[in-house]
């Protein structure tokens, strides 16, 4: 399996699209940093009715938190294109048949590709997080994080850098999960399509359709909406503490909001993975 993973990783990073997505994400991080430099921290605007803010809340941690909110949508839409390519491109070019004439089980080949897709999504989210953190620190320095959401709720929670990093790590991990739901859907569709772009674009079509469905004011849809994964794509914004535990005085992690979303998103990933594997294991390789 290690050999297969190494080979898949090598193939992935020799292609153009994964690098293009990194470049676009990097470009957006730079734009976020420029926005912070020109317009100041969003907190300064959001909290001005409740608090008088003194000093500059901008720093690397704030840049990292702003980036996760701003760039998520790009990752949801671009990562599926890369994930769908991993299988679809091999089907389209015929290399899948060359690979499958080798003495490896289809399940092993599939698993290596699936883990590569997951690894790519994680690396992409980590890239955005680390670049914004480093870029923000370089531009604005280092300091505590003023929780943006607490401000809008009329409370101010200031996270020490160590704690802030921990919560940002949670946020980026959850972002990776939300991105990989679309990614795993596109990857699974790669078992159906012998085409590089069709899996990614079909996944995007499904993603947009579900997002529209989630916005439609239909009464019967209200029961379905909580189960649409698109209704939980913003879950990563909810990991930041908004209150203190009244007994211990410690920051309260909003698990009651986060864990149900994590479970639902994980179920979607598993379902897409099983469907994709089922199809791949039975697929007639005719191209």
């Amino acid at each position, binding site marked *: 399996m290690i050999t297969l993973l190494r080979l898949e990783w090598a193939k992935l990073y020799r292609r153009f699209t994964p690098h293009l997505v990194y470049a676009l994400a990097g470009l957006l991080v730079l734009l976020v940093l420029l926005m912070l430099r020109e317009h100041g921290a969003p907190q300064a605007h959001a909290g001005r009715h409740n608090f008088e803010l003194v000093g500059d809340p901008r720093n690397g941690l704030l840049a990292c938190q702003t980036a996760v909110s701003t760039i998520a949508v790009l990752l949801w839409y671009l990562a599926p294109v890369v994930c769908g390519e991993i299988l679809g491109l091999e089907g389209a070019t015929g290399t899948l048949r*060359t690979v499958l*004439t*080798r*003495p*490896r*089980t289809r399940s092993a080949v599939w698993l290596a590709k699936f883990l590569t897709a997951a690894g790519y999504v994680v690396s992409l989210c980590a890239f955005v997080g680390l670049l914004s953190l480093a870029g923000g620190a370089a531009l604005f320095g280092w300091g505590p994080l003023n929780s943006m959401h607490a401000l809008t709720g009329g409370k101010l929670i200031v996270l020490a850098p160590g704690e802030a990093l921990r919560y940002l790590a949670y946020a980026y991990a959850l972002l990776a999960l939300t991105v990989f739901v679309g990614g795993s859907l596109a990857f699974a569709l790669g078992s159906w399509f012998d085409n590089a772009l069709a899996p990614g674009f079909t996944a995007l079509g499904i993603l947009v359709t579900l997002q529209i469905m989630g916005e439609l004011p239909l009464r019967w849809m209200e029961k379905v909406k909580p189960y649409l994964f698109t209704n939980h794509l913003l879950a990563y914004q909810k990991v930041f503490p908004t209150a203190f535990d009244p007994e211990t005085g410690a920051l309260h992690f909003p698990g009651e909001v986060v864990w149900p979303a994590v479970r639902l998103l994980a179920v979607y990933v598993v379902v897409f993975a099983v469907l994709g594997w089922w199809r791949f294991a039975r697929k*007639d390789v*005719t191209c």
Partner: protein
Amino acid sequence: MSAPVVLATAGLSKHFGRLRAVDGLDLAVPAGCVYGFLGPNGSGKTTTIRMALGLIRPTAGRVEVMGRDLAHRARALAEVGAQVESPAFYNYLSGRRNLELLAALTGPVARGAIDAALARVRLDGRERDKVRTYSQGMKTRLALAQALLPRPRLLVLDEPTNGLDPQGMKEVRELIRDLARDDGITIFLSSHLLAEVQQVCDRVAVIHKGRLVAQGPVAELLRGDGEVCVRCDEPERAAVAARAVAGEATVTADGLRVALAEEAVPELVAALVAAGVRVREVVRERRTLEEFFLGVTGQQEAAL
């Protein structure tokens, strides 16, 4: 003792909806031979090869490779090299890198094995160029190199000379003969080029519309209907003498055609000489593979 069978199919069938692409195919490829797999376009050759390599799931029947059921494909394909249809590679990688990646899927590759494979197909010197810059013929050569890398005992080649120039085709034929003769590799060769197959194959199977219509050693299949051609003077007088031995003899422009068993040929020659006929040449007539192929597929067509 007969050679062990390295590739066998039993009742192998594949239906695509109502189309029976392959229908109850029984093949047996003995070890050490060059086995030609022939059939018209759309006869089911590639579908059969894909089933033999586990790329397509049969509707019915089974495949055994190296005596192992293909259900255990990782073990069954461990000693198999294959090139199926048009060569397919990662165009954004060099020829050498492609070989390294594909070889690693089989297992550790001996040092220098990639260089040796590249040299064998005459691609050394271009191995560091991206595959996207290769001609069709170079891709075909690279496909042969990747098929040779696992050090196979069975080599499955589907139209291996497609895209090659006449010199390249000749080299591939020689390579196939060398691999079988010197390395003892069994070669399962699918080709449209009947002359090519006749030159390199020991045994052939012919399929038509998914069904096996002939299978056996080339020499046996091409043996004519037992006719002997005799070039001689005075064909009419020769025919009288020949009829005394064979019963039937047809006069041709420069001699006779006589339907005769091989062991009776000396008797015929003796009769002709005794009759004072000057015999110039006696040749047992053999069909070409093309004649045989067109004959069996034509018969099958007429029967349907």
